[in-house]
């Protein structure tokens, strides 16, 4: 019995780990006399040896699947051990891990056994048992089963914090290459449905206080990148559209990790996952959501692939040198956050601090900005007159030369913050 549950956990956690979402924030669920609380911002309880945050117990209900998507370990034709948890086992694991403070909650996904509704109905039983019988208020992220009926999806929405459904490949054409049975429409439809429901519930809440919560932490999706030939501009265009159309909370980009050599259209075992590219996509995503950049400033038909050696903000600045240097003592917030090496927090600090006197170089250096990068784009109170016009390649190589290891460390750190 003990060995069996250990083995199931091994198989079903292993199969679920390719879903990169680990967020446990953004919900509003309060503890009302039971156990748990999902109202705080997310907490990473530990980190895997690959450096990713572990915040949720991320498992599949089962890795049996009637489909055969080429990029997926659980696909029908793959020769792997199969397992399935019972409803009780998932509940027991979640509660006991939660009480020991190992996790913030549950991320439950599943291969499709029998059919979509049969699977979805089991997932629903688990979340209901947790909420209603165990009085559990921790975080629950449920992956919707494509093709499940709207009634089941809607009911599940009353008990979970976040829902997601993965696009898998960034474009329809890419998806068809690796999963002929799937299409983007089966993702769009449920996203649209849940989004509409979220809006309805929010409007009702304005009128009636005791409206139940419905997917309070919103929806997310994931794209596998590097498996199919889309360029960065295509990928980010899809993300941008999905953010706008379905008001997603997050889009995740997951660098493809080869799992076998059966399908020759896919990268073969041994090829490194495109980690830097993945990181550049997250940085771009970040710039769109929090730095007020529009997509075409960063990527467009004339510039379709992100630089791998520098981050997208620096890349944008180098292509727009005519906008610089800016005067740190007079520029507004929106302008300051566009300076490479200056983040949102530092920008706020600069604006507050300069009320008390003009800022000089040494003060900026102490404020936690990446001064060696920023200095090419700003002037402060004691900046000497520029020595002459600088060209983008010159600036780029200066930045890359000055302690490139530090630059890399920052990239790595940045990557984790984004997950």
């Amino acid at each position: 019995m003990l060995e069996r549950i250990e083995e199931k956990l091994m198989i079903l956690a292993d199969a679920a780990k390719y879903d990169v979402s680990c967020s446990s924030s953004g919900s509003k669920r309060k503890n009302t006399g039971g156990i748990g609380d999902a109202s705080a911002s997310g907490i990473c309880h530990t980190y895997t040896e690959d450096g990713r945050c572990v915040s949720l117990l991320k498992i599949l209900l089962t890795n049996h699947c009637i489909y055969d998507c080429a990029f997926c370990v659980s696909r029908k034709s793959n020769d792997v051990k199969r397992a399935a948890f019972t409803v009780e086992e998932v509940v027991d694991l979640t509660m006991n891990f939660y009480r020991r403070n190992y996790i913030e909650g549950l991320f439950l996904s599943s291969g499709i056994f029998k059919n979509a509704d049969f699977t979805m109905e089991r997932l629903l039983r688990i979340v209901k048992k947790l909420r209603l019988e165990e009085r559990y208020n921790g975080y629950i992220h449920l992956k919707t089963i494509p093709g499940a009926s709207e009634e089941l999806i809607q009911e599940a929405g009353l008990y979970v914090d976040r829902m997601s459904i993965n696009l898998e490949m960034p474009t329809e054409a890419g998806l068809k290459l690796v999963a002929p049975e799937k299409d983007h429409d089966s993702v769009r439809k449920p996203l649209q449905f849940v989004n509409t429901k979220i809006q309805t519930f929010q409007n009702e809440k304005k009128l009636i206080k005791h409206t139940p919560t419905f997917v309070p932490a919103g929806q997310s999706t994931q794209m596998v990148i590097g498996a199919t030939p889309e360029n960065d501009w295509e990928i980010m265009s899809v993300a941008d559209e999905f953010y706008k159309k379905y008001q997603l909370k997050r889009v995740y980009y997951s660098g493809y990790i080869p799992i076998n050599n059966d399908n020759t259209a896919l990268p073969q075992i041994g090829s490194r996952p495109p980690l830097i590219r993945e990181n550049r996509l997250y940085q771009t995503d970040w710039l769109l959501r929090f730095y007020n950049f529009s997509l075409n400033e960063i990527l467009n038909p004339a510039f379709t692939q992100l630089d791998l050696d520098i981050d997208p903000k620096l890349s944008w600045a180098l292509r727009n040198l005519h906008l610089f240097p800016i005067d740190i003592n007079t520029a507004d917030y929106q302008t300051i956050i566009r300076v490479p090496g200056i983040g949102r927090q530092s920008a706020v600090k600069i604006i507050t601090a300069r009320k008390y006197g003009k800022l000089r170089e040494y003060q900026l250096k102490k404020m936690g900005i990446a001064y060696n990068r920023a200095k090419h784009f700003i002037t402060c109170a004691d900046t000497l007159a520029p020595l002459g016009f600088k060209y983008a390649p010159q600036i780029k190589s200066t930045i890359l030369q000055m302690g490139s290891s530090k630059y890399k460390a920052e990239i790595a750190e940045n990557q984790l913050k984004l997950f």
Partner: protein
Amino acid sequence: MNYVFDGSYHGFLCCVFECFEMKEWHAVPVAEGFFQPDIFLPERTIFTDVDKAKRIQDALINQFGKATADDFYKAFLSEDTEAWNAAFYIMVLLFKGNHSILEHFGDLKVLYFHQTLKKVSRERHRMKAFIRFSKSNDGLYYAIIEPDFNVLPLILSFFRNRYTDMPWVIYDVKRNYGFHYNLKGLSEIVIDKQEQTAFQNTQLTIALDERDELFKRLWKQYFKSTNIEARRNMKLHLQHVPKRYWKYLVEKQ
């Protein structure tokens, strides 16, 4: 002038009180334990008087808001004398009417104060994340901690909100005090050295719940299976889970 106080936050606030009473603007508070007499500086012992401390605390809250008052307490919990000096310096200036001093990021002491707050809050966050409860056979969940800063007071409400339906203890062995939650309220506890060793060598003295080992094993198993070998990055891993925390992390044992 050195003010020698007893090392408590109340004592610290009394130093501020004394400073204004005596108009000794350049006084420096030093805690008893840390104190090394300096032949060039006179010293005075400041006795802790709860009423005086309360007057300073109330003044902080009324004039500058609860958040600011809390920040001074948090900076104090860093147990860093340089941060204490900065906090003292800022408090004195605030009460003297320089209400914007906290925004003077160009002032190195102010900057240090803010940096300390950041460090304390990072440690607080880590304790919320890295605490691991074990369950004893009488149903008590308990956790041992050894934080860099004295952050236990800052995480109690978090755990109280989260674990309302089970009794728990969180104990700081570095500072030798802890809190016990008994489903109704929280109380501070201090256990003697002998019991403490017992607490740490759990297998020996505290009888564990029969399924506790099972869940520890399952958690370790989960930790292993969720790792993606192709993305292995130990440098990043260590940056996020520094070695000094491993001792109490089930998955790292």
